[in-house]
């Protein structure tokens, strides 16, 4: 079902809702397309006319300046018209339903929606109700998915490691509440990563995580041993002092990435983080700013990957 909603019968990308069920050739095509945009972004004039005349609505039902900005930049570099809506503080507080908001914007001739919402499945709901020809990009729905983040992470990994088929990857921290982790896991499995681990305390690893095809580790040294890629997840403030974790400092002690803990991974392992980072909670500054960190390149590649997705959705040829 996922496949039919986001990939049409001719195998073209119709919406981007989740990395789950996205075929490997499709993921690779997105990464290859992003390659071309990386070079565009290095030029003096960083603009191509692929989406000229198209209207892209960034509809954020949940605040996020950063992600919205990266989508905005990507759309503008494709020459699209971008309209930003922070719905968290407008329509819904007036009692308008999610679909009514979307139908209203659709009546303003939107070609594409970039949607973030606090509820898992919100982007699916919208994709099921938009007119044919209108595309939906999920920019994060609840704990479910954040596919462009997952894809930019794949781009980053491919950039540094070339091949997925012999990699050992560890995803560390709050997997339970992380849509980023879910999007990474599905993409990494599809791309054939043979050794994929999630690392964290039992309160932050979801039930049945193993059924997603990952190995569950509760010990950092074991989890990071011989890794090629270490992905640190952001720990939300509200999780730090409560029923799930006693304190941020205890979390850092057990699962925060320090140079010492990283030393059990391969010497050329790369360190990733979807941002924004909590230095001293999930990652030590010496690692975040160290030679193995690719956290800033992730941001750069993120623009190119979002351009790739938008161009594929906006000009289906």
């Amino acid at each position: 079902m996922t496949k039919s909603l986001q990939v049409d019968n001719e195998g073209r990308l119709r919406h981007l809702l989740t990395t789950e069920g996205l075929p490997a050739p499709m993921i690779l095509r997105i990464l290859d397309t992003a390659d071309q945009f990386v070079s565009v972004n290095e030029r003096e004039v960083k603009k191509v006319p692929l989406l000229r005349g198209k209207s892209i609505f960034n509809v954020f039902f949940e605040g996020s300046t950063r992600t919205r900005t990266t989508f905005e930049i990507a759309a503008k570099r494709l020459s699209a018209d971008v309209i930003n809506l922070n719905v968290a503080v407008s329509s819904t507080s007036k009692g308008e339903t999610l679909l009514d908001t979307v139908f209203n914007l659709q009546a303003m001739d939107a070609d594409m929606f970039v949607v973030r919402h606090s509820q898992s499945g919100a982007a699916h709901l919208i994709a099921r109700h938009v007119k044919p020809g209108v595309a939906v990009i999920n920019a994060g729905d609840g704990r479910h998915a954040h596919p462009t983040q997952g894809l930019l992470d794949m781009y980053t990994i491919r950039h540094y490691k070339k091949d997925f088929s012999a990699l050992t990857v560890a995803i560390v921290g709050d997997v339970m509440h992380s849509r980023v982790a879910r999007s990474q896991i599905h993409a990494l499995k599809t791309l054939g990563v043979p050794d994929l681990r999630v690392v964290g305390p039992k309160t932050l690893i979801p039930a049945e995580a193993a059924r997603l095809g990952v190995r569950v580790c509760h010990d950092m040294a074991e989890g990071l041993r011989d890794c090629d890629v270490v992905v640190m997840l952001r720990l939300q403030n509200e999780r730090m002092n409560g029923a799930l974790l006693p304190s941020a400092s205890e979390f850092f002690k057990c699962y925060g990435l320090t140079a010492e803990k990283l030393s059990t991974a391969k010497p050329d392992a790369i360190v990733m983080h979807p941002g924004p980072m909590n230095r001293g909670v999930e990652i030590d500054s010496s690692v975040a700013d160290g030679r193995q960190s690719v956290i800033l390149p992730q941001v750069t590649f993120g623009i190119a990957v979002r351009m790739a997705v938008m161009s594929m959705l906006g000009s289906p040829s």
Partner: protein
Amino acid sequence: MKAARERRGQRFAIEGARIVDPASRRDSPGSIYIADGKIAALDRAPDGFVADETIDAKGLVACPGLVDLSARLREPGFEYKATLETEVRAALAGGVTTLACPPDTDPPLDEPGLVEMLRRRAASLEGARVHPLGALTVGLQGKKLAEMRLLAEAGCVGFFQGQAPTAETATLLQAMRYASTFGYTVWLRPQHAGLAAGGVAHEGEVATRLGLAPIPVIAETIAVRAILELMEATGARVHLARLSSGRAVDLVADAKKRGAALTCDVGVHHLHLSDRDIGDFDSNANLAPPLRDPADRDRLRRALADGIIDAVCSDHTPVDEDAKQVPFAEAEPGATALELLLPLVLKWGNEMHLALAEALAPVTSRAAAAIGIEAGRIAPGAAADLCLFDPGKPWIVLPSALASQGKNTPFLGFEMTGRVARTVVGGRSVYVD
């Protein structure tokens, strides 16, 4: 549909039907003779019986009118979702002649006056027999005991918290003590409120994959264990509503073996569906309790066949479109089901290789026993409440095929086998297909 309305006192005969009566384990062709709203005789007409009308029921099964332990009629308070008129019609179209309705209306059924009004309204519609379940606590708030004695006198057959959280343990203890003073049955949907807080889907692979907040099985089993302890302490009789997990079935089986005054039911969706059926966030599969693992579903199916689970009910909950066309977690749980109850029970019976009389027992005689009322059997002297259905007739679940105002069902578009041809309540044909 035309509802033939005969005068009370009319005599009629149903001939040539395959009569299936779970209570007497009958499954054989025969005739039913009806007079004064009651079954006068079976197979051979009483002396001097002259039928005003004879119904040829060849090819049809005649079984007791179904007894549904949970159908939300949505009155009072939720008339925009459904009304008594539409839902009573849905009940009759589904062959349901007796139903219990939970107290989670708005306001809840915590006042005798409300119960009387509901019963009067239902009676005036001349349809299914409606047995309200009264609120266990005032406003279903779980704090103050409702006026159980007065509510019982107004017609309540038990006391329930409905979808509201079960009262906190100390209150529940007193509620069960008080109810047992008068011999009332306390109905409880076992779910520990704290463990289920915020959850919308079974804690398992699907919730993990879709990022839906989980409701663990222990939310149910811890509640069942607490209730069993309270039963021992108070002597209260309890009906556990809507079991969802195999572990809970094990606890119930143990308790029954030890002789606990315990009955229980399962919702019909949970016999056929699992969390896998949530698919891509299908909010029609947002049910309470949540659909669980396929292994849980299989255990429920077996336990219903074995009689560990006494009854299966529709748990009919018509929800308006607006309350379902939202992200999964925000959707109102529940499904329209009165008209799906019979075909889904037949499907379960077929798949479990049960004789028809065995398959129908949990929606007729065993369900009536769980409420503690006289209903659900075909016998001389019993009320002439009957369901005549064509067991082989296929139909598609489309909004237009449903009399209920609620069109929300995870079975939308599915083909069902078995369709009601005629429903008889108190000797009157109140629904004819």
